[in-house]
């Protein structure tokens, strides 16, 4: 498996798109205030950054794969080659208004440290990840007796770059543990459509295919 395939999110599958843009990107872009400064960690080929720049947002990116970086730079985007696990330490505190980690958390070696770094560098963080508590995943393990594979996560257990899967429930628990405040939480269904807001957590954890969270530092400004 090439370097690019390991890191570009949602490999091998065309995610749900609205007017040719990925719906989770549009949702994330909605969460970012205009005129702010954003770092997109694991920015792939720069689609989200392009949406953000189109909205007058100062966007920067980090991407692990050389191919991804070069495609971004050839679009005029401010992207550097780097690794979420090792290179976030180089960024100073409060350097950005938002730091975005889109579909990458589960591929990091130390998700907790990465999450802490996101909220050190940025005032807010926006994190999206595939929900391993999604009913199809549960069914495959329960009935099929094998590690789950879906359209959005087609890799087999032995070649997946995703080494730290979690459920929405797990993620909420981690946020509590490291005193991270959840400002907004959205679960998307298999087609990238947001689930209704007034549903209980267990329902999201069962029927959300991915979770998107707007986070800020807990215990501040209170």
């Amino acid at each position, binding site marked *: 498996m090439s370097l690019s395939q390991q890191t570009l999110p949602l490999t091998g599958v065309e995610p749900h798109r609205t007017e040719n843009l990925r719906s989770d990107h549009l949702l994330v872009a909605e969460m970012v205030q205009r005129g702010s400064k954003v770092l997109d960690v694991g920015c792939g080929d720069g689609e989200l950054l392009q949406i953000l720049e189109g909205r007058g947002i100062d966007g*920067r990116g980090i991407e692990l794969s050389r191919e991804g970086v070069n495609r971004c*730079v*050839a*679009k005029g985007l*401010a992207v*550097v080659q780097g690794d979420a696990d090792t290179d976030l330490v180089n960024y100073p505190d409060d350097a*950005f208004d938002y730091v975005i980690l889109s579909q990458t958390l589960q591929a990091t070696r130390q998700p907790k440290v990465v999450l802490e770094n996101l909220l050190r560098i940025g005032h807010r963080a926006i994190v999206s990840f595939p929900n391993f508590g999604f009913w199809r995943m549960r069914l495959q393990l329960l009935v099929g007796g094998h590690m789950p594979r879906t359209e959005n996560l087609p890799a087999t257990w032995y070649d997946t770059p995703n080494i730290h899967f979690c459920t929405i429930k797990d993620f909420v628990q981690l946020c509590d543990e490291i005193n991270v405040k959840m400002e907004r939480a959205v679960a998307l269904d298999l087609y990238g459509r947001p689930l209704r807001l007034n549903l209980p957590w267990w329902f999201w954890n069962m029927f959300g295919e991915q979770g998107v969270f707007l986070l800020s530092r807990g215990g501040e400004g209170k």
Partner: protein
Amino acid sequence: MTNVQSIPGPSIPSPSIHGEDRAHEADHPTSQVAKFGMEQPLKLDCGVDLAPFQIAYQTYGELNAERSNAILVCHALTGDQHVNNAHPVTGKHGWWDTMVGPGRPLDTNLYFIICSNVIGGCMGSTGPASTNPATGKLWGLDFPIITLPDMVRAQTMLIDRLGIETLFCVVGGSMGGMQALQWTAAYPARVFSTLAIACSTRHSAQNIAFHELGRQAVMADPDWRGGRYFEHDTHPHRGLGVARMAAHITYLSDAALHRKFGRRMQDRELPTFSFDADFQVESYLRYQGSSFVERFDANAYLYLTRAMDYFDIAADHDGVLAKAFTGIKTRFCVVSFTSDWLFPTPESRALVHALNASSARVSFAEIETDRGHDAFLLDVPEFFDISRAFLQSAGKARGLKTAGG
């Protein structure tokens, strides 16, 4: 590059066939010249005020009414100001014809391109091959030691003279990239964007070692005559040729040498059992050495390699590179090449980390190629695409007109 088959392969680089042309260019260049009198000395890092002095430069394209589209191209160690025109000594194409010109990434239809010969060089800017007006003789080793910051300080005086407040971009590869970084660190308000290619913020120990090898080769040549060869009507072409051969190896890569030459023989089937240039790679290197000495002054080579050795931006900022770029607004694009072992990617990465720490807007691309350090001078489409996009994006931010009109 060079057609290897046509090279005869002399055992020693031939004496300069363009010696007189070269000497003439040092004082009377085939270029525009900005002269600075006694009242405008160049304050050198070594403590000397150099005056009078001159800068030879070329321009391409037109400066717009807002004077906002000027790009300064900084040349590498053995380059010169002839970026996009025939060389006055060798008659060869401009050294960056692939990058600069109408429709090229550095588009002369859009931008006003300036390139000046560095101070200490031998193509018309004041250097050791120039005449010292105080004595009427060539400077030689009496010329003061110059540094990268000195070169850049001289360029700021030229840019002032041209009536340009802020450069749209400073571009350079290798020593040119070092100058671009020095420009940005020392005069951040005057640089809107920086394109730094195959370079570093400091010269590594290995690179200093290679330069020392080259200098020793020059000085070991009896024709060097303590640096006053011009008074004896000689030129240390053997020493300078060897220096160039060694340096040229560092500009390539093992893979590129294997691809181009392998172990193939030069115009023969069997080894001659002599020290003749049996292998194509030997013949190629000898040609590189001999063609270089035709156009370059040996003392200038000593001075310019020395200037690179002394270069270390962090050292001027308490050893912390990030401090050199604190609060910088300049947009950066840093480019490295996978097979460049002279300025390997980790050097660029260290710069990028420092720029990240300063929250600078930086793009960084490592381009895969087996062509080594010299890749920045060659036809590498991905490199051109990235350079073009960076300049277009920066141009948009600066409100320049675009290729579409």
